[in-house]
């Protein structure tokens, strides 16, 4: 059974990629994922803003009690408040890349132009096989236009592409007026991969305590429909590799994504729920399905159910939509 896959030019032993999660916070976690068989690992995101805030906070913590009391002009060794910047993250890349055979992909969330490029370059130097741009951008300013938001994505991508030679993927949110167009623009701007889709962690409200709750809700299989729809559409229409993420719970979900046209399938929630060894369950399931259906190579099934290129996409979508709606109504209310 040949599960080997090419993702952004990287040779993967299979199309299952562990996407950012607490599992990839340590070298040990990365090793466990690799041992379970995944084809690549995307590390958790490096947040530039977090690093800057932390450095400022550490400086404050060290400074405030210093030079106040004659017996203790400081409370920490000289180096304690040194801003190590991304050292911790880079060390993780270095050690993880040296520990596992599979590609280790870094993930970056910058806030300043220099942040994006400097950190990306440092990640490449530390041994990242590729960089995933986690442009987690929520325009809270209601005056920002959709075009500006799109341009920001393009700018960031171009800047990082100029700074590094390793492949660069963009992880996209699904909330664009025209996903297809932004995907094509990013493709043209040099994206080596498009990761569909980012999930916004949105605060909830607690009606008892009147508090805002920051919640992390793991994805469920139903969440996979949206990325699959768009991957099916983009397959064959962009040069960039396509990664499906969100809602990959079992082997059937992996198969569906591949059929829709994903180059790789990313999983977070399922691995968190069931542990890293769940990766082998997914891969075994994929192999079993392929055997049952007579496929010997992953490439053979990839994109079988994508929207055929060259046709009229809107007609295809429209007809799918109408028939799906009709079917759904039928199951709910009986034939009309």
């Amino acid at each position, binding site marked *: 059974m040949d599960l080997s896959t090419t993702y952004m030019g990287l040779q993967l032993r299979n199309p299952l990629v562990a996407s950012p999660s607490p599992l990839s916070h340590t070298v040990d976690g990365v090793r466990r994922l690799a041992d379970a068989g995944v084809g690549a690992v995307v590390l958790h995101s490096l947040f530039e803003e977090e690093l800057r805030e932390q450095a400022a906070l*550490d400086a404050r913590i060290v400074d405030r009690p210093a030079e*106040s009391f*004659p017996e203790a002009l400081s409370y920490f*060794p000289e180096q304690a408040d*040194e801003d190590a*910047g991304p050292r911790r993250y880079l*060390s993780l890349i270095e050690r993880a890349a040296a520990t596992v055979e599979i590609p280790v992909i870094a993930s970056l969330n910058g806030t300043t132009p220099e942040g994006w490029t400097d950190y990306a370059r440092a990640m490449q130097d530390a041994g990242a096989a590729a960089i995933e741009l986690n442009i987690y951008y929520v325009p809270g300013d209601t005056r920002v236009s959709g075009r500006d938001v799109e341009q920001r994505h393009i700018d960031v991508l171009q800047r990082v592409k100029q700074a590094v030679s390793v492949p660069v993927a963009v992880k996209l949110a699904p909330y664009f007026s025209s996903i297809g167009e932004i995907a094509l623009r990013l493709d043209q701007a040099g994206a080596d991969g498009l990761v569909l889709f980012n999930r916004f962690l949105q605060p909830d409200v607690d009606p008892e305590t009147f508090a805002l709750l920051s919640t992390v809700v793991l994805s469920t299989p139903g969440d996979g429909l949206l990325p699959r729809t768009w991957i099916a559409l983009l397959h064959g229409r962009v040069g960039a590799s396509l990664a499906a993420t969100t809602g990959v719970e079992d082997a059937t979900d992996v198969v569906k994504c591949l059929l829709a046209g994903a180059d790789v399938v990313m999983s977070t929630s399922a691995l968190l729920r069931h542990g890293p060894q769940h990766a082998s369950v997914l891969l075994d399931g994929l192999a079993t399905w392929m055997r049952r259906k007579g496929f010997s190579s992953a490439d053979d099934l990839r994109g079988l159910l994508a929207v055929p290129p060259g046709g009229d996409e809107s007609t295809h979508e429209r007809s799918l939509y109408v028939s799906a709606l009709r079917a759904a109504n039928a199951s709910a209310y009986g034939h009309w």
Partner: protein
Amino acid sequence: MGVTVDGNEAAASVAYRCSEVCAIFPITPASPMAELADQWSSEGRRNVFGAVPGVIEMQSEAGAAAALHGALQGGSLATTFTASQGLLLMIPNMYKIAGELTAAVIHVAARSLAAQALSIFGDHSDVMAVRQTGFALLAAASVQESHDLALVAHAATLRTRVPFVHFFDGFRTSHELNTIEPLTDEDVRALIPEELVRQHRARALTPERPVIRGTAQNPDVYFQARESVNPFYTRTPAIVQEAMDQLAERTGRRYGLVDYSGHPEAERVLVVMGSGGETARETVAYLQAQGERVGVVQVRLYRPFPAADLCRALPASVRSVAVLDRTKEPGSLGEPLFLDVLAALSESHADGERAMPRVIGGRYGLSSKEFTPGMVAAVLAELDREQPRRRFTIGIDDDVSGTSLRYDASLDIEPPDAVRAVFFGLGADGTVGANKNTIKILGDEKGLHAQGYFVYDSKKSGSETVSHLRFGPRPISAPYLVGQASFVGCHQFGLLERAEVLARAAPGATLLLSTHHPPDRVWDALSRPVQERLLAKRVELHVIDANRIAREAGLPGRTNTVLQTCFFAISGVLEREQAIERIKASIAKTYGRRGAEVVKRNHAAVDSALAALHRVALPEKVTATREPAAVVPDFAPEFVREVTAMMMAGRGDELPVSALPVDGTYPSGTTAYEKRNVSDLVAVWDAELCIQCGNCSFVCPHSVIRSRYYEQSHLQGAPAGFRSAELNAPGLPDTRYTLQVYLEDCTGCELCVQACPVSAPTDPTRKAINLEAREPLLARERANIAFFEALPAGDRARVDFGTVRGAQFLEPLFEFSGACAGCGETPYLKLVSQLFGDRTVIANATGCSSIYGGNLPTTPWTHDADGRGPAWSNSLFEDNAEFGLGLRLAADRQTELARRRLAELRDFLGSELVDEILNAPQLHESELRAQRQRIAELERRLEALDSPAVVDLRSVIDHLIRRSVWIVGGDGWAYDIGSGGLDHVLASGRDVNVLVLDTEVYSNTGGQMSKATPLGAVAKFAAAGKTMPTKDLALQAIALASVYVARVAMGADPQQTLTALREAEAYDGPSLVIAYSHCIAHGYEMRDGLDQQYRAVASGHWPLIRYNPMARAANRNPFLLDSSRPRISLGDYRQRELRFRSLAASDPAEAERLLELAQQTVQQRWQTYEEMATRSAHDFLADARRDR
């Protein structure tokens, strides 16, 4: 190229380069030398022999001296750094090291010794106490000298084999920044030939050439052997001079064993040692220029005493000599330097070498008391009198023994081309840090010399700082505070009321004032005396709202950069453009390692500072009528009004000897008179929301939250704003409840808000206690507090001591300490004072708790309305457990005497009463109260009697109430320096209660590692992360079988803390309570302290336990595991604290490794505890004490 460093760094720089081993222990003011050595070692910096010296922190100075001794005997070049009691602890080994003629140097930042009180400040009491050990003593007088003579000491010890103490004045030279010419490695090598190092090594113990060293000798040879070293000492002065000359050849800086300066035919001469010599030399030059025939002899080598050099140095014309000693030797004929000089001159005279001058001796400068040109002039003037005083003091007003000389405090001899500036700020606003940068900026300018010295106060919250800066074209040798400043920076508006601020301003001085008042309103905001002083001195006033600028730049509270920029702009010490450029470069250098964000914010502060700076034209006349508030209220006791208030106002120097107690005994409860108003935000009670749980007052580190319950009728006459709620307790109808915040004492730490369990129904951010601005509430709350204090105090016998809720009604007898805002230690002490305070004596180890507990001017241990409260004492750092045990032994003997006399007097006093007293149980408050009533009756009956037995009984009658002895200290004491004593006391079986305030680090001296420091934490001396797990003190004590042991964390389980303290106190035997105390040295916002305590417990880092031998005796399992299984990972607890996080940033792989090991340690310890918690009673050792 000069560098600007302080004396500690100057000395350490040489010591480190000359050494292979540094054995150290932190002690003020020498700690920075050890810290620098450790830092350089951890950075891999090499000594001049190409090796990275090994630095090891020991458990005490005694341990450091012993390790030093061993390292020397092993053939290493070894050194240590210490001061004060630390040096005293080294004495036994110093005799050994010297007796064996071992080359070594101990660098000492000379400091006062603890006598009637501890003092961290400088004098020669410590070094004078080792003059008999056989060590040579070499005294440096300035920052440059502490650098140069450090090398001379290291060179001379190898050449002479005589070990050296190299010392300089603590809290002057040690902490004075000055521009010096540094010694290169070549200079160091030139003075320390490797051949000498090899000879030293060849004397080491080695099995290849075995010898026996350290024999026991008998009367036949000990004496002769002791005399065998004489030639080595005879040679030493000449060899030291040789090293000094060699240094001079290389650097041009020439030193003598004794140096004379002054008139070549002087008639009157001072002899002095240390930094005072600098002042004397400058003053003598000034007087000489005015035609006076005066001179000064600076002594550098004190042991072996260079008598011949001293006599040669004194001009033949000298008629009278005054010898100044910076120490006191009560009962002696005179202080040591005086006696040595007298003996030397007398022998020289007897030998016919010279006429005998009159020699007088005086004391000066104890505990960093200022020594100024006026004082030098006064001593020289005394020598001019026909009958000068034989013994004198200078710098104080001794109205008891009449020893003191009068002096002219205003004598100003400083050159006019030097700029002098003083800055008044708060520790937290960064004033000192900015001034240190300024000194470095100016010190680095070609042709400029700079000096800085910083005065801190002894409070750990809201502390004030004064920076004294000098700059000029010539080297600056004025080791005393700036008196006449041409520039005064007042970085906090409120500080302007302090008389000292404008007292230090020269006429026509510039004042830079930070204030939120707009420029056109500033004048009206000033009090009358301030306006008066400004006009009288024709001050040029500039103002800026530095707080606003700093806040806008993202640096709330840190006004340092803004005000530093203004200083440069106004003072003109550099061109404005050039100054801005230098400041920005300095910011980039200082803050660069903290990342771009920090640099960006500080640069922004520089850029916006000048636009907000305004010159204020002063009117012609005083317009204000407002007088500053009195320092203490009228109703304060006389001692507080007359003495304490002077210290509080910064005028303690003016107090005469007669004002001070003779034996170090002071009244308790004086913090109540010091309303410090250190926080703009204070706690405010919401009576509507409050459920009266008592959590907030339980955790309040400063005892500012008090509760009372009272009958409705007591509300008559309450001020309009007085808040009251119905008492929420069954069985007490028509009873009211008030929670009163003492807002002038509140530090705004926010722990109470965090501890409050309730929130407003529609606003989760609003609690039943919240922080609000203090200023608008001040008048109302002052009236409320006065009314609250007049309410009847709750009846202790009716309060349920067993609950947190009940404990809030117990009056704290520890209040308003100067501990850090949000201190994690003080809530435990407060609770002890609430529960047992009226019958407690406390032995307190030196450390944070002895400083916030006993540092003048005001102290927090107080008394109740009956005058009873904790009696508190600090003996030393290392001896506290033994000291406390002594208090117990005395109490036991006196209790025994009281009971014996009472039994003897049974027939006269009434058998029923006597039997009741003798047999009374005294565990519960109601029983104690009943006993107090019986004793009151006993006292009444005793009035009618008169016999020796009756008098005896009266003298010990207080011991008929069960006395509670508490031994309190931090982990530095309990785990390290006091460990042996604590172990012994716990094994004594005696009824003492030990409370360890465990911050897992030496907090008071600035965050050095102790054996309580967790595996993987970063601390000073463990900069790369501690690689040893914490010692399990609890298990060690449990192994003794007769010790009650508890580990508590108030923030995780206040009820368990309360229960443990009560059980510990009730237990008739030794008790050990180890209390988790969050601390600023952990590195996070202190308001989260309780939450972190919770996490420490939830992660298993700090399991809550109790071990009660009484349960074992009752056939129950004595070991209780009070916290549940770890339910968060250790990483979840640790990632919030900088002490752990910084290692993850600097060395992620090592941090992960240590975290994993620490997590394993947690799990293994938990398994051990869990197994113990399931054992049967007989699986534990039985308490074998008799009568139990």
